[in-house]
């Protein structure tokens, strides 16, 4: 149900800004891009608010932040050469990934997943949400979350195996 007394905008911002930024930052790994996504999310949410009452600010923000960050990640991967410092493709396959390299690899790999799988994976693993919570945010069934998560993990683990030269 929509809130009977919706909070004012400063309260909404104070309550949700950090989480929106965090979701975007975990997915993108760039402070600047995450800030841009957060601002875009607030703009979109404001438009949605003007069109009618918001059922769940938390869900709306999580959904927008996740999908917009993934969209940017995918487009960036498609249209812009990744910075060498963030790319692992040039490494020796037997190079042992550590720390920031692993994080960069995961983001690059997540960008290659279908959008729903990427969103489910991000919310499940970066936001530590259970399947019911992810389903509510993405407005899909719990079964769909389970399937997407299973496929996403499978694809990522296959990519890791391939990268490590383990066939």
């Amino acid at each position, binding site marked *: 149900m929509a809130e009977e007394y919706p909070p004012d905008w400063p309260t909404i911002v104070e309550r949700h800004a950090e989480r929106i930024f965090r979701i975007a930052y975990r997915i993108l790994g760039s402070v600047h891009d995450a800030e841009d996504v957060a601002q*875009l999310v607030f703009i979109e949410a404001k438009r949605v608010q003007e069109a009618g009452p918001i059922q769940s600010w938390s869900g709306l923000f999580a959904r927008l932040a996740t999908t917009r960050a993934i969209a940017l990640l995918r487009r960036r991967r498609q249209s812009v050469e990744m910075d060498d410092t963030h790319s692992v493709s040039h490494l020796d396959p037997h190079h042992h990934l550590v720390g920031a390299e692993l*994080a960069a690899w995961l983001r690059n790999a997540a960008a290659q997943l279908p959008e729903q799988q990427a969103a489910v994976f991000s919310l499940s693993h970066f936001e530590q949400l259970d399947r019911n919570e992810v389903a509510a945010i993405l407005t899909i069934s719990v079964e769909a979350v389970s399937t997407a998560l299973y496929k996403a993990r499978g694809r990522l683990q296959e990519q890791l195996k391939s990268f490590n030269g383990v066939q």
Partner: protein
Amino acid sequence: MNDITSTFTENHDDLEPQLESAVWAVLSEPLPTDAIARVKSNALALEDKPNPEILPSLHNKFWSRRSWMQVSSLATCVALVLVATTMLQSSSSAFAQAIEKLKNAGAYRYKELLYVETEAEPIESEVLVAVDGRSRVSMLGDVSIHDSNGQVRLTIDETAKSAQIHEPYGDEPADSAIEFNWLDHLKSYGENPDKSLGTMNFDGRACVGYEVNPTGSVTYAVWVDPKTSDLVQVEMKGMPKGSGITKLVMKDFEFNLSLDSNLFSLDVPAGYESTTAEKLPELLPFEESLVEALKGFTELSGGNFPRSITDWSEWATLMVENEMPKEQSMILSARLGTLLPHLTSMSHDDYDYTGAGKAVGMKRSIVFWYRNPKKQLRAVYSDFKVATIADADLPKK
């Protein structure tokens, strides 16, 4: 967010160890508190801004020039807004001489600059036109070859080394041919601009300007070097409301060139992978196109009407994000593209799109109205019904 250390295990217990390490690496990155403060500050600034616009820099991250132009091309945006013909009333010898030169232009080239509100820099393309009317447009690494009817027959992606063949869809000049008609219009009209625009320097050349006022909302500013009677620059303004296109500039003209005929070849270049494009969908009359376009958008948006029917960025983003099949996106783009020539031919006072912020299922209301050639007011409602209305029924401003 849940506590990482307590929930990490239960959420990641079936992950392969290295994948688990990768997730942990992401989660271990510290969150910059100063960035969060900036996010809050920027978001708070939106409080007093109803229907805030997405800033250009932000917009660009989600909306590359290439994507914009791909959809624009599909909907023949730029081409169709050039539909108006010119009616020149007074005479000017410099203008007349420049037009006379155009009539004998032979093969020529020029630069086209498309100015869009969301882009700091114009989108630039180079246009080559052969004596037989074929043309070659190069833009952002894409090349399109048009036949003498103006129909796109071959598109080439030089980066991907791929080409797409477009079958002709009739003997009539394509609407897209209108892209070049600004020149034909000037050539065919002759000697009499509407008014003088005075003088202005272009790259050190003192030029005199003439304004041409066609029907509808479009105007041309034609700048001529009076010493040589050379055409220096043509600017087109007055695009349909909300289109996001501020103006189109044609400049750096070179006439009577000797251009290699291979530049206009409809054959796929050697070494390029080729595909055949889907045929363009059949075009519908204005009202039907509008209704179909709005239906298509609301099906993708969960019922929300678009902010604009002339700014296509939101449409294209939605098509991309929904991974709309190419055939369907072509149809939707064609419906959208059909609107522009009609809107261009109308005065800004004779139509308005009022669907922004509305959604299917909300209280029935007018989302678009216009005055047709019979001077009847026609309205499209949020349930996609179309009716003739009275002036009193128009939405309040």
